[in-house]
């Protein structure tokens, strides 16, 4: 080690200790979800948020559907690290469906409620509010699967679909697929007894997907603890990761049994309520996004959509990174954000027709 490196290392040490102390005392509070919004509608626990650009809005409003098991603000994590903020700065109006935090009273909400009723209501409200006949629909993870189901069943008001690491083929090499298809766990009993599946249960399942991620994470933290910007990013993401929400029981049973266990969606046997979903009927423009190191939704599971749909205007965007990294990582701006902005610019939404 050279003298210069040694002096740098010595300089970092007191900063590490100081930041570690501040962290333990809870003095560092990351500023999350800072992009200004207005709440324009609510349905049960769900609410529709509208993010408006400061200057004149462009012609491609987008409705974002986050995953149902995490809080919505991963899409607006912190200033400079926000999917929503980037698109708003590019002049797009962004609508975001916040699922809220399901409680015991939401245990009977079905997949049909989420897909047809809540997403449907959000799409209609976004269309009316923006004065457009159609809006772009972007779904992330499970929210992506829900968006795909909606686009297949109610394509009338969807200008284009962006499926961001959305599982479609549920039988893959991943651990989640292995657990679900093992058939040992009685999902129905779990839902009957617990009502909504508790956030802690889901959180521990996700931690078990990569058990060694924690030591790696904390080793990395101890190395970079002196860097306040890194610390702020780290704490922002950690806060979100540990801020899980419960999964309504009825939807959980349908999701795990019919999609993970039986893989009904790709077999053409999956129905939402009484309506059968045919992926090959999707003909609108579709952007499918996969992450190369995704351990939750392997790229092959997400890219299945691209191979199945009938759309002539379709694009497969294979990004380098993990499931969360491509959305909030250091390269998200050049990757996901800029590609989405370009996609929206290329696909303007038509104006709404009015009764006269």
């Amino acid at each position: 080690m050279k003298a210069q490196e040694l002096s740098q290392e010595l300089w970092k040490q007191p900063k590490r200790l100081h930041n570690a102390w501040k962290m333990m005392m809870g003095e560092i509070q990351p500023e999350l979800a800072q992009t200004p919004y207005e709440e324009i509608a609510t349905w049960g626990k769900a609410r529709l948020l509208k993010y408006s650009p400061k200057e004149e809005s462009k012609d491609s409003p987008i409705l974002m559907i986050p995953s149902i098991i995490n809080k919505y603000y991963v899409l607006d994590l912190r200033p400079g690290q926000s999917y929503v903020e980037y698109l708003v700065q590019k002049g797009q109006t962004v609508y975001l469906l916040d699922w809220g935090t399901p409680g015991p009273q939401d245990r009977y909400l079905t997949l049909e409620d989420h897909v047809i009723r809540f997403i449907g209501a959000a799409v209609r409200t976004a269309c009316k509010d923006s004065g457009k006949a159609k809006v772009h629909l972007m779904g992330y993870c499970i929210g992506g699967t829900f968006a795909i189901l909606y686009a297949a069943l109610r394509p009338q008001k969807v200008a284009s679909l962006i499926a961001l690491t959305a599982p479609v083929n549920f039988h893959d090499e991943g651990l989640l697929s292995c657990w679900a298809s093992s058939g040992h766990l009685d999902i129905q009993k779990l839902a009957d007894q617990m009502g909504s599946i508790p956030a802690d249960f889901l959180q521990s399942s996700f931690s078990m997907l990569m058990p060694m991620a924690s030591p790696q994470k904390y080793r990395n933290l101890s190395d970079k603890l002196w860097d306040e910007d890194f610390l702020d990013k780290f704490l922002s993401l950690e806060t979100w990761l540990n801020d899980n929400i419960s999964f309504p029981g009825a939807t959980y049973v349908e999701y795990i049994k019919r999609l993970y266990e039986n893989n009904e969606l790709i077999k053409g046997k999956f129905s939402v309520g009484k309506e059968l979903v045919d992926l090959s009927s999707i003909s609108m423009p579709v952007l499918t996004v996969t992450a190369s190191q995704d351990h939750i939704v392997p790229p092959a599971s997400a890219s299945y959509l691209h191979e199945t749909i009938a759309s002539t205007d379709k694009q497969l965007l294979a990004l380098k990174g993990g499931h969360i990294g491509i959305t909030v990582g250091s390269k998200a701006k050049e990757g996901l954000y800029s590609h989405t902005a370009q996609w929206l610019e290329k696909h303007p939404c038509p104006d709404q027709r009015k009764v006269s």
Partner: protein
Amino acid sequence: MMNPLEFQMEMSKKMFSEWEKNMGEYFDKTLRDQGFLKLVSQNLSQSLDFQGEMQKQMGTVLKAFSIPTEESMQGLYKTVNNLERRMLDLEEKIDQLEDTLAAKSEAVKEVTPKKAQGKTE
């Protein structure tokens, strides 16, 4: 050439990486093992049975004091969910009607000037 301190740091890093890799592989193998999964599921199932029995006993006590039980609350949840469903289904139907009306009124607008043009000719 590395000095002893650097060598020691490099070695400990390598050892730690190797440990992480081996542990990762071990966990992955265990978590995929059908015997292990069966055991975890059985444990979970038994604790769910226990929880269910507790709730049943608690329900009996609450009923004796005329306090709403889990069962009565669930009935209420179902009713509220059904009401929400019907409201959102109605909203969707109204929206579809509005769209049909808008399409028709646009078609009428397009036809009317053509008819008027035809009459003048």
